[in-house]
Structures are given as structure tokens and as C-alpha cells.
């Protein structure tokens, strides 16, 4: 449409292809560069408010990841990043993966069922018989606000301390808190996986616990019958 009437129309004084306004813009037909030179502006240093907002956004992301609401089929923590391998081989580092707690699922949250459509009631863990009766009281699993800008300390998750029906669900932080006392009785209700871990870490951290691995041969009396055979 822009060139209508220009090509065959009256000649103009200017050279170059006819365009909308006259004919003095010469269009370039050479291909443009793929990455032309560009002056990238440099981001200014972040203000305090912005740093805190970023931190809170990342915390929010981490909280949802840790909660039951992160729905994925992949084994968490392993195939999350493409470098991870899901080949079914058991590895030592598996015990440090973020575990889905056995009792914890999407159904543990006290939902307000009037707000959900009936189709989803099964996913909420509400059985049709329960609807009219008062559902079992479940406790909220609360996230705690952490002020520190250091994400390392801030992300002490301590999901170990929380189980279904425990009140005062606060997370164990690396730093001491006033309600650590409250958490002591909660440790009894920890799950078996945690106790298993604690066993290993009783004496010393790390693998090179000499006392645990030392085997002084007192138990090796079962081989008494096999001594007749020559050792090759």
C-alpha cells in the first residue's frame, strides 16, 4: 500500500525509490547484522529495599518448592536440573535429598472446602461422608519470616521438626531462637528416617569414624569350619 501510485506515477525530482513522502529515502537492501553494536546500559547498584524484595521473592519460591504444593513427577532434587541422572542407582547423596515427608501431602492443609469445586474434593482429602461432619482439625504448617540477607543461614529448613498435628511449627534455624525449647518435645515425633540419620552421626560427623568401622575380629568365629580348605 505504501508504494501504491508511486512506481508508475509521475516522476519526481529526487533519485531513489519512491516512498510515501517523496523519493528521497533510499532503503537499504543489505542484510542487517545479527548482533548489531549496542551500548548496554549498566545496572545501578541495588537499593536496600530492592535487595530485600529480591530476597523475599526467592524465599517465597523456596518455600513453595519445599511445601507440598510443588507438584512434579520427577524425583526431586535429582532430575530438577538437567544434569541430574535418574537411573535408579542408589547413591550416598540420596539421603540428603529434600524428602517428601511421609505424612505430608496436599491433603494435610486445612482447606476451606466451600471455596473449592466438588470435583477437587478427592484431591483435598475430603471424603463425601465427611462433608457434612466437621472435618478433622489439621494444623497449618507455617513459614517463618527470615530477615537475614544471607541466604545460607536463612534457609535452615528443619522440616524434621514438623509433623502432622504438632503445634508451634517453627523452623530450626542455624541461629538460636527463643522457642527452641518448644522444639525439644517435638523431636520425639520425628520420623524414622531422621533417627536413622542420627544414628550414623552419633559419634562423629563424616565417614571416617574409626571407632564405628573398627572390626576387631571377635565376631569372626563362623569360619572355623572352612579352614580345612586350602586358600588359593
Amino acid at each position, binding site marked *: 500500500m505504501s508504494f501504491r501510485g508511486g512506481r508508475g506515477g509521475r516522476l519526481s525530482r529526487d533519485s531513489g525509490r519512491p516512498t510515501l513522502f517523496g523519493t528521497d529515502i533510499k532503503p537499504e537492501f543489505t542484510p542487517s547484522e545479527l548482533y548489531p553494536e549496542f551500548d548496554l546500559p549498566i545496572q545501578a547498584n541495588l537499593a536496600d*529495599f530492592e535487595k530485600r524484595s529480591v530476597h523475599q521473592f526467592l524465599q517465597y519460591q523456596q518455600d513453595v518448592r519445599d511445601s507440598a504444593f510443588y507438584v512434579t513427577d520427577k524425583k526431586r532434587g535429582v532430575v530438577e536440573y538437567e544434569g541430574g541422572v535418574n537411573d535408579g542407582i542408589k547413591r550416598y547423596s540420596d539421603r540428603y535429598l529434600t524428602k517428601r515427608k511421609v505424612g505430608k501431602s496436599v491433603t494435610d492443609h486445612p482447606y476451606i472446602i466451600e471455596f473449592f469445586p466438588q470435583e477437587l474434593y478427592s484431591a483435598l482429602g475430603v471424603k463425601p461422608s465427611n462433608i457434612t461432619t466437621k472435618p478433622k482439625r489439621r494444623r497449618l504448617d507455617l513459614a517463618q519470616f527470615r530477615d537475614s540477607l544471607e541466604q545460607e543461614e536463612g534457609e535452615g529448613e528443619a522440616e524434621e521438626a514438623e509433623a502432622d498435628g504438632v503445634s508451634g511449627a517453627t523452623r530450626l534455624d542455624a541461629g538460636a531462637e527463643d522457642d527452641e525449647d518448644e522444639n525439644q518435645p517435638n523431636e520425639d515425633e520425628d520420623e524414622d528416617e531422621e533417627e536413622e540419620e542420627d544414628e550414623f552421626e552419633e559419634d562423629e560427623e563424616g565417614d571416617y569414624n574409626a571407632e564405628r568401622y573398627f572390626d576387631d575380629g571377635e565376631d569372626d568365629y563362623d569360619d572355623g569350619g572352612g579352614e580345612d580348605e586350602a586358600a588359593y
Partner: protein
Amino acid sequence: MSQYEKEFVILLLRDIYGDIAATVVDTLLKYGRLTLQLISRYSKVPTSTIQRALVPLVQNRFVLYWVDNNAGGENTTYVASTRNMYNMVRSGAFVSYVLDRFPDAAGAPDIIKNLLLYGHIRASDYLAAQSTSQAVVSRNALTLLLQHKLLTTLKRHEFNHESDLYMRIFKRRLAAIPRSKTVSEAKREVQAHAEAREEFQVLKRIHDDINDGLVAAANTTSNGTYGNKGYLVSESLPSKTVDESAVLALNYDKFAVLMRAQILVQLVSKRIGNVTAAVYRQVLDCMEPKLFRCVDNSDKAINVTSLEILRRLDADIELGSALVARSSRKRSRSSSSRISKRQKRNHDREGSVSGSDDSMPGSDNFDIDSNRNGDDKRGDRDNSEHDDDDSADDTVVTNSRVEHLNFHLALLSCNQNLPFLKKVGNKGGGEWTIDFGTLTARVRELEYDSLITQKEGPIACRLLRIIREKGRIDEKQLAQIALLPPKDIRSHLTALHEIGCLDLQEVPRGTDRAPSRTYYFWYHKPMGAYALMTQAVLKTIVRCYARVVEERGRRPGVMSKLLREDVRRDEANMLTPAEKEEVRRVRGVEERFIAHMMKLDRLVLIFRDM
């Protein structure tokens, strides 16, 4: 709902809520309104998994549903709501804002975090999940946030889409109007639409009630104004506490209002001065309880009086420091020298002389205003509650705090081009209001100008401003007004045309449309231009976040190691120095890009939501 907004929302969901949630929303955005079976069919994910994924989506109101009770049985359809999902970007800023605004309310940030995580929580559940000492703190924080309307209560209809609600109201209204021979079918529908619109407006504003989610506090031991049996000792209003049965959620509309206030105050401080900006912030704070959302707030105008502002103004702010005394004809010479010496002292003390220099744009207006205000002040002095600390010398314009305040308010209202305030009356020391419609339109223009200056240069911005003022103008006249040769401006105009800032209108002179015999008028359509700019900004946001995800993905080893429980507890010892360096890089990238996203979100707020 644009292509880039959809992309962004899916990217966010995939990263935060998992890939199945992202797939479900992707399907809903591609196909529109779907039932559960159709979602399963199009996305090829089993129904049970979709149900599981829909739970957090419905909880956060990212996906709205509608239950259709017709003869064929119940039918539930789902619709994705990009507006609610886009608000995830503002989540970090929300928590930070609450931290800054209410430093004393210890439980407030926790509440916000939990509401972000869970979408909505019943107040009683929240308080029950904490120890008793924490619960008291939380209760106060909840009440405070509800009073400031940063939290809102939820009703069942807020999980349904607006169009469904409107259709239900419309059908009901239509059925209520009886059919008759005199009234045609079309007229019935028109009337039903009018009534339905009114009812819908009322429905949208049910949370504007001042006592939304609050009930009168029973006799509480913590509240000192109550006597033994719980009857009021003092004559102040009964204190409120949160209603335990209310379901609470975050109010992003109110947060948008607060962000808008921040933007306006920044503009004032850039244009006029810091002290005036502090005064303006106070004006906005006074108006805040009545502002519920940015657009379509309420039909009544909101007025603030000078005395109210003065009462709530921080005592530390030196109002007089930014002002220079005007030599008024009414002053006697001795007092003027006295005053000017005092002002000189103030100048030396405060560094805000620059504020006074460019604070005199419409100096004549200001002079008249100050004299008029001075007259008013003298009249009102008997009635005002604040004592002026100067001697009662009627001919001298005194430097009292009220006067200074009025000077600042006059400064804010004197610029016709950028009317921060408007004076509407005289009682209470002066009544002021803000016309947000014109003000935000002007703010949008300024912001757009600065963006164009960055992209295309100052000459292009000048041309845009000329075209904006003139309406439709052709090249020759434009060159005359801009005092530039036509050949130079042509490239700028075409560049602006390419990014959607300008449009062309052809007016042929004859019956044939030869280009040399037609007029070509350039004009600027604001709403279209802003929409295109918003799209570009959203595209940038998508790219920023995609880059963050990519940078994390480039270091899979370190990132999966960071997810380990033992590493999380003690990063300093568990990572090798090389890994620590990588982590530092990734965290730096995250921080910079997400902070940039929040700055771009400010632009989206200006152009779209304000």
C-alpha cells in the same frame, strides 16, 4: 492477556509451582475455558495428577472455576486468570513494604509470607497453629493489616470469573423484568444490563467497608481503655480485632495504590523538592483509607484539609527550610529584614536550597496565593488549634508551620500541567483533593517521554511532544515548529512509527492517491502506544526471568548440591571454594535480574494498572 504475559506467567509457575501446574495453565491459556476431562485430554496428563495440580492453583486463585448446575448434572469449568498470576512478581515487594511500613508489628511479615504460600487462610486456623504468645502478636498484626486493607476477606464468589458472575446477575435481572407487549425484547435487555452493571459494581466493592473482617473486641485484658466489665472507659471508638471466622487473603489492589503513591512522591521530589515531597506523602497517607483501588475507586471525591495534614505531619520535617520569603508589599522594612535573616539562617542549615530555586515556576500565582492564604490564615487564626509562635503583627506574613504547609500545598497545586493537588474549598485551612485521572495520565506521558528519549534520542522525544500538543500535523509544519530541517526529522519520525509511537493519516487531495498529492499527517495515540510499550516491557521481563532459569540450569551440579539438606544447613563448610564462587555468581545474576524485573514491573504498573 497478551502473548508475553502468558509466557511470563507460565515461566513463573514452572519455576515456583512445578511443571504440572505450568502445563495445566498452559493448556487453559491455549484453549480457553475447559473442564477437567478436556484439560486431561489436551495436555495428556492423567486426571488425578491434574486434580492435584489444580489444588494450589485454585487456592491461590490462579485458576478460577464455575459450576454450572444444569439439567445434565454438575459441570465444572476452569479458566486461568493471568492478572492474579502476574501478581506473583510483586510478592517480594509486598513483604518488603510491610516490613518498612510497620516495623513494630512483629508478626506482620510472617502473615504475608504465609498468605503468599497458602493463598488464603482462615484467621482461626492461623492463630491456632501458633503458640499463645505468638498468637497475641499475630492477632494484633492481623488487625493492623486488615485495618490498612492490605489484607482482605474472601467470599465464595471471588473464586469465580467476573464474566460468569456478571452473566448470572444479568440473567436474574432479565428474568425479573416482566415481558409485556409494550416493552420490546431489546429494551428489556438494555434495562437488565444497566441494572446488572450497578449490582455488579456493588458486588465488586463489598470489601470497601471499613469493618471488613473486623469485629468489636470483647473485653480484652490487653486493652487498657476498658474497665472491669468491658464497658468503655474512654470515649474513643471501641477497638477492633480480627474476625476469627474470616478467610484472609492478600489485597494486591491496595498494594497497587500504595505503589502508585510511592511513584507520585518520587516524581514530586524530583520536580519540586524533598520537603514538598514529604508533605505530599502525608497528603496521600491521609487519603489512603479511602482509596481502595487505582482505577474505578468510588464515586465520591476525597478531600483532605490542611489542618488534618498538619496534625499528622512528622514534627521533624522542617517545612520552612525549603522556602524563600517573598518580599510582600505589606511588610514593613524592619520585619522583612528580620525575616530574611531568619530565612538565611535556615538556608545555611538545610541543604535544600535547590528545592526553593525550582519551586517557583508560576511565581505570580504563588504570590497571589500566598497572600490570599495569608489572609485566610489571619482570619482562621482565632479558630485554629495551633498557636503561631510569632507576635501578632497583622501586616507581616509570619513563618508559622501552618503557613509553610500552605505554601507547600500551593506549590503542589500551582502547576496546571502537572496538577499534584487541587484546591476545592477553604474550610479547615484549605481543602485539597487529587484528581488521579488527569494526574496519572500526565505521569504516563512523562514516563513514556523518558522511555522514548532513552530509545530514540532527545530529538525524537521533542518531536513526539510537539505532535502530542498539535494533534495531527504534517511534516513540513512539524519541521517549521521544531526548527529542524525536514530531512533530519524524517528518520526520527519513521523510527517512532516503527515502535508504534506515531501513526500516519493519509488525506488525499484528489481522487487518485498519488503520494505527492496526499497529505500525510502524523499523530500520536496514547493508549495504543502505551499498550505496545507494555508489551515490550513484558517481553523484557520474560527474557530476564528466562535468563535466571537458564543461568541456574547451566550449573546443575552446584544447584542440585545446594538443594541437599546438609548443604543447606551449612553452606560455608560443605562447598568447595570453586563451588562457592559459582554459587556467588549465580546468586548475583539472580539478584540483578530479579531486581530489574521489579523495576520493569513498575513500568507495567504505570502504563497498565495505574
